């Protein structure tokens, strides 16, 4: 799968509500991907509408939900809330393509310099986009991420800490929920589909392979819903060892550097 594969853009239908105003300079796009999360997505959309940052370009991608009325729900919400956004779009995949493809579809459609990536079962606090955007712009980062609050079946904080390639090569502590410069997404050829999971980890490792830099904004700004029915909990745990092998194969240089650094620490 590549961003340049022409067949990936087929089978989509889009609906867009766009303001007549010219594109604001501080426009932030939101990449919100949904697959059968009809019971949660309104919470996600409401948290986006409640952002303190004004100029928003909302791109919702429905990855062919079949179990619930996601598309109708989203369409109705957009009709009711379109005035909040500079532009609001819903793109529907005609076939279920997986989260990486869904995110790439959204990025491809996005018009902001920065794109915030989010799954439909999560929410964000009102200051999230303004703060992440300010830090990315003023600090000159290719991406920014915050600390995360887990809610639902668990109440705790996430694992976010300072961006450090050596530490990241050992284990992923940066969630997919982050603000990413659209150009950086293009530079790394988007999100790759990995059938067993860990596309988000792979995306950050590609970031490092390309010498791109993310900044940690040390505030709790995003919320991750723990409901025990996500793809991560279902599939990725079972495939942990094979996923490590996949990452080592895809990012051998980084893996080797981390291994050498660990040996030095041990000595």
């Amino acid at each position, binding site marked *: 799968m590549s961003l340049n594969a022409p067949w990936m853009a087929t089978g989509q239908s889009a609906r867009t509500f766009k303001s007549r105003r010219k594109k604001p300079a501080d426009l932030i796009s939101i990449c919100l991907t949904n697959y059968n999360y009809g019971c949660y997505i309104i919470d996600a959309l409401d948290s986006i509408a409640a952002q303190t940052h004004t100029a928003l370009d909302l791109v919702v991608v429905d990855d062919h939900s079949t179990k619930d009325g996601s598309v109708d729900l989203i369409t109705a919400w957009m009709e009711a809330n379109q005035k909040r956004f500079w532009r609001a779009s819903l793109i529907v995949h005609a076939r279920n393509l997986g989260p990486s493809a869904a995110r790439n579809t959204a990025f491809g459609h996005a018009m902001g310099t920065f794109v915030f990536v989010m799954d439909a079962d999560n929410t964000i606090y009102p*200051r999230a986009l303004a703060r992440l955007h300010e830090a990315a712009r003023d*600090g000159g*980062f290719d991406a920014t991420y915050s600390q995360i*609050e*887990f809610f639902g079946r668990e109440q705790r*904080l996430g694992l976010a800490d300072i961006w450090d390639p050596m530490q990241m090569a050992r284990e992923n502590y940066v969630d997919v929920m982050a603000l990413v410069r659209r150009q950086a997404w293009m530079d790394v050829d988007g999100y790759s589909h990995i059938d067993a999971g860990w596309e988000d980890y792979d995306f950050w490792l590609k970031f490092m392979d390309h010498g791109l*830099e993310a*900044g940690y*904004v*040390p505030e709790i700004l995003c919320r991750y819903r723990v409901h025990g029915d996500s793809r991560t909990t279902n599939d990725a745990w079972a495939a942990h060892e094979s996923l490590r092998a996949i990452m080592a194969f895809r990012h051998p240089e980084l893996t080797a550097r981390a291994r050498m650094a660990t040996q030095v620490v041990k000595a």
Partner: protein
Amino acid sequence: MSADLLLTLTPTEQQDIKIIRESGQFDTEFYLATNQDIAGSGYEPLVHYVKYGFREGRRPNRNFRPALYVAQHPDAGLDSRNPFIHFLQTHNGCHIAHHGLLTRFRLEDLSLGVRTLEQLPFFEAGDYHDLNRDVARDTTDLAEHALLYGVPEGRRLFKALRVSETLGTLCIGTEPDHATQTLPDGPVPDSIGIFYNSGGNVFIHEIAADLHRTLTEAGLNCVLLDENTDPDQRPDLCIFVAPHEFFHIGRGQVWATGSIIQDAIMFNTEQPQTLWFERGIPFLLMSAGVIDICHQMARSFHQAGMPAIHFTPNIDTTRGYLLKEDMTHPMVRVLPPACRKRPDPLIPFARRPLDISFFGGSSAHREKFFARNAGFLAQYRNYFYYRKFTTPIDSSPRDRLLSRLAAHVAGHSRIALNIHRDEYGFFEWHRIVKGAMANGSVVVSEPCLPHPVFRPGIHFLEETGRHIPNLIEWLLHTPDGQARAEEIRTATWQLIGTPAGNRARCARIRGFISYVWSTPEA
């Protein structure tokens, strides 16, 4: 002893009995308990030991193990002599007769260390046995085991419940200081080395530098050194900052010898409930004296019979903030541009660009607080460095600025939040005073162990974690709260920045060093 029995004792045996009796080290109860076969023999246990027992390898007390002793002192077993007599005659005043795993200490050092551990209020032999059930209680001196094996083997020494109870007791007393342990105008060493471990925590390095500056202000000739110094070239007096890490990392281990430690002063910064504190115990207890960053801890060492003083360095009002090379660090670049400039502690509460700052490592206690209040905190302009990496904050390019950054961020914050690592409420001087108060932010803290100088309600605000959101809202949003915040900032700034206070601290530490320096070896 009956007269006819005396007749059967040789002059040597009579002499041995006298030596042992005078040492007070024969444990009759132990001897009978471990040698039940002699109960009906009619012999007084000591006589039995001198006449037969030692030849049969029996032990006079929990500490003396003849085979171990003879292995280390081959001449002690010559001519069928009693090795215990050899020990008593060659190690006058010692009761520890072997080195365990601490082979680079003399028996004199170890004996003193074990006695001091017994008196340290956090230690209780029964607790040690509860924590280490594999140690044979009946035949082992548990304090000896704790020091000689427990620490090197990474065992736990102190029970959590005992630590809590002891801290509670230490908080009740009002005994402010140990006026006897000072010689105000006494002699001082010609040269003093302040040691920190270059592979250790950057906060410790900073505390060592602060101590160095304060001692220099006190007119002492001192130099800041690390573990790479040649021990043979060491200054007259060595002060080791954070012994729990100094003697464990890299070349710091070279310094862990009795001859260096017995003449040194330790600056303890660690909290008693931690494994780290226990790792520092041998060095603390075998040293010449302890400076402790915590008032209650200094009292505990004092109760154990050691020279000990509570001391915190002077705050340097001309200190450097972030360095030029720090400005490109990502954790600085994520700051709003207005918060990257050099902060001024005098900037009033209302004009500070950040609402709340926090710096600290992750722990279950903090996790609970922050998870519960995530939504509350998300409303405010925070700088919340809640460290999830489990590696220590060291001098790597990634971490070395964090100590400076904590102070810098507090300098731009209205409130510096102090959530303790655990339930113990240790007053963390570095975070509360040096990091936050000295930079003009108002400290909002969970309740702390009482501090002799800084008072809750006057110099900082205390509240249970559950109600801290109410307190923060009151401070940020109400005129009364804002006025109170300004009062607290003023009172604290006056206390920290007063030259008289600095002079008094200088005199105190000089008097203590002189006292330790003038006290002959035990």
